[in-house]
């Protein structure tokens, strides 16, 4: 059975080419997906953290104490990172701890917030008002990004399902019915072109979907896997339909 499958794979040069790329691609896509999830968790926690800091400052606590309380009250990635940064601050300074937190978060939003807080601290500005306004601003930004992600994700998912799974099944079935191997038409090169087309169409769709969601890198890494699935589906359905009719 396995040898038969390998033999079939030999007829599909596109799949043979994509197989090692897909394995490498999975290795590249997973860290990027984890990083994206981690960063969106930190970005999502930012408005709440700012609001809490603002409330603590309003209650008369210092900025360092407010940050320490926020770090202790959260058990997510942002809280852990902040807690680690504050532990290190005991050996350095509070500003250095904030800079470390911004750096390790790898989030542009956090880096902007820390930059602004740093400048406000230097000027001894009223931080309660500053942090409160930041919390509102980032809350608005996060809701807008969530809205975009929700709406666009549906379309991106539909596109991948349609082009990567449905299209190869439908076209493989039609080609299998009208030009099965039993007819004896010399269509080997046309079939190879169709295998390649299935993969290319899926690759383009996955890249477009990634661009729509703002995760082009992650989706580019996963594209070879989708392309392999697509071309194998086409081949499988073509052979099945050709044997059935």
């Amino acid at each position, binding site marked *: 059975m396995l040898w038969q499958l390998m033999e079939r794979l030999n007829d599909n040069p596109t799949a043979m080419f994509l197989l090692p790329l897909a394995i490498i691609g999975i290795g590249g896509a997973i860290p990027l997906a984890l990083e994206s999830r981690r960063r969106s968790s930190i970005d999502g926690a930012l408005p709440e953290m700012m609001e809490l800091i603002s409330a603590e400052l309003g209650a008369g606590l210092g900025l360092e104490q407010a940050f320490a309380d926020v770090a202790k009250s959260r058990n997510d990635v942002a809280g852990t990172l902040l807690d680690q940064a504050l532990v290190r601050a005991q050996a350095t300074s509070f500003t250095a701890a904030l800079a470390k937190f911004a750096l390790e978060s790898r989030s*542009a939003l956090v*880096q*902007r917030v820390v*930059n*602004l807080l740093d*400048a*406000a601290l230097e*000027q001894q*500005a*009223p*931080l309660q*008002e*500053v942090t409160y*306004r*930041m919390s509102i*601003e980032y809350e*608005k*930004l996060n809701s*807008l*990004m969530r*809205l*975009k992600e929700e*709406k*666009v994700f549906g*379309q991106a998912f*539909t*596109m991948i399902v*349609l*082009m990567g799974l449905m*299209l190869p099944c*439908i*076209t493989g079935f*039609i*080609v299998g019915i*009208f*030009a099965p191997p039993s007819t004896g*038409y*010399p*269509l080997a*090169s*046309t079939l190879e*072109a*169709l295998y*390649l*087309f*299935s993969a*290319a*169409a899926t690759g*383009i*769709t996955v*890249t*477009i979907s990634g*661009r*729509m969601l*703002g995760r082009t890198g992650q989706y580019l890494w996963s594209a070879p896997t989708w392309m392999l699935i697509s071309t194998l589906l086409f081949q499988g359905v073509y052979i099945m339909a050709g044997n059935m009719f």
Partner: protein
Amino acid sequence: MEAEERDLLAALRAFDVLLGAGVGLESVLINIARGGYGAISRDMEKIMDGVRSGKRIEDELTKATSRTKSTGYKRLLTTLKTNVTSNTDLISDLRRQADREEEERTDRIMKYIEALEGMPTALLTVGMLGPIVLPLMAVAPYLFAGASGLIDVPGPGVARMATFGGLAFCVFAMGLIGLKAHTRDPGV
């Protein structure tokens, strides 16, 4: 969309926060120029380089206004310049501008979502028609082999070339359809 518009709202909020906190305009410009606001940071750096070399800040702001094509960023620079020359209420002006930018950003995202709505259908149309119609062309010389006296049937080589060309064109067309996802991105 101009490069400056991507980070304009964040820069406006930074101006608002820092000026509201009592930081001077020049310090705010230095802070923004340090980085984190993309094209705006780079432009502010140029402005501050000019100021450091002895030029007047209002002249550098005017120069920056003529450099940019972004309407929103042009508006910000003009507001800053007006404040330097006429001492206006900069914070409330910038807050109004930031609110306006925020509304525009929401509109841009909504338009982007709307623009993408037809994309799955368009991609599927091109992606379906190509592999259904074109293989028929490749099979045509064999299907109509017996009717070569009645109708003009292209040779297998020509039919194969037309099929491959057609499939390549379909992939190219799909790429062109998908380009919309990149060109209309509001950059949030």
